[in-house]
């Protein structure tokens, strides 16, 4: 598989959220605001890229019996770096995201890509796979956040779009809206884009 195919497969054809149903917790949790979703997405992209690179670099030396421990250690370290970076440089965003940055470590996409790809492929391909998976995840987050923030707050990225005449849909701000929006998105994508046949 060439590098372009690796990226397209990772980001779109095998999108972690839509096709593999991974990383659902954060997709539901932080998608009520576009900015939170973007920062979360960037954090996941950073962690995915560097953890994939590191895991791939040491793949020939990693004992099989402790590989998952090593992967969690590596992913956790990069997550802490993201957390410290946000606290030092973007403290307001860090406060908004609260505990969710730390919870990137539990995001199944990271372990999924580590196990399925970077532990078996070279560092460059692994990084491209990480970028692809991260961008695919971020796009899904932003799509859901766009609908939730627009209808729930009448704004996008904090900028008022719908004005004071708009009666805010409280349900969009609350967690249940993320459940049904994500479900509808998976349904539409599988039916119209991926043409998944169910018997």
């Amino acid at each position, binding site marked *: 598989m060439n590098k372009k195919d690796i990226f397209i497969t990772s980001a779109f054809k095998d999108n972690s959220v839509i096709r593999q149903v991974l990383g659902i917790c954060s997709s539901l949790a932080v998608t009520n*605001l576009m900015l939170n979703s973007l920062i979360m997405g960037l954090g996941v992209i950073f962690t995915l890229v560097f953890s994939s690179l590191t895991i791939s670099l040491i793949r020939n030396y990693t*004992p099989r019996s*402790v590989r998952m421990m090593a992967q969690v*250690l590596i992913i956790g*370290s990069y997550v*802490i770096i993201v957390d410290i970076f946000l606290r030092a440089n973007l*403290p307001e965003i860090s406060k908004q995201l609260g505990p969710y940055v730390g919870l990137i470590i539990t995001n199944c996409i990271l372990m999924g890509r580590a196990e399925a790809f970077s532990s078996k492929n070279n560092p460059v391909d692994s990084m491209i796979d990480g970028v692809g998976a991260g961008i695919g995840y971020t796009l899904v987050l932003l799509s859901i956040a766009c609908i939730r923030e627009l209808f729930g707050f009448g704004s996008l990225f904090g900028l008022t779009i719908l004005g004071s005449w708009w009666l805010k849909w409280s349900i969009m701000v609350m967690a249940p809206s993320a459940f049904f929006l994500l479900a509808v998105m998976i349904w539409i994508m599988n039916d119209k884009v991926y043409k998944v046949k169910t018997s």
Partner: protein
Amino acid sequence: MNAEQKGFQDKQYYPIVFMLLITVFFVGILSVFYRSTEKAVAAYQKQMYQKQILSLFADTLSTLTGYASETFIDKSKVDSNFEKYVSVMEQSTPFSKAVAAQYYAVRDADDNLIGYCFDVTGSGLWGTMKGLLAVTMDFKKVVNFAIYSQMETPGLGSRVEEDWFKHQFAGKPFQSEADDIVFSLVLEDALAETHQIKQITGATITSSSVLKMLRVVAQDFRQHPLLTPSKDNR
């Protein structure tokens, strides 16, 4: 990979050595990164804390001095304004777990006392919430209130730090002679009466927790009606 390397990797203790090495490596990187940002984080937190205290009294100070409210919370002037208008005090007998022993007396430019600010603590949905409560000299009215540290749900309970939520406490009665003041919640889009607070949509538990926090603090103050500072750092 040569045969010697292969042999080493077959040893029973190899996984332990491997884990030990990468643990030391990553802990080292994290320590360096943490140390390099520690001062920036601490300085930011201190400045935000001082700014928060000044912001609670900004409108009152503005009325008394004639300067715009923004002047008192201007990022470049926070340190000097804090030193000029705020005295750090300490109560020798702490009020309770909900109110920190260290508190702040705020004075105008002529050194007249205009109110007190207390660091208060309460439980939220996911963890501890910390706030700053500014009250008038007689403890009867809230000058302003703000939550400055919380672990509530991002985008829902975390909106407890938004201005509209904080500002609605300004001027509310805090203590009466006879009974405790009991606030109740109304919907976010509703009109709030004197003893009502607009709740955050989707975060009823967080909103209720804030009211509970204030109720506990009010009871603590009632049991310690005389605020006798034992130490004035000014």
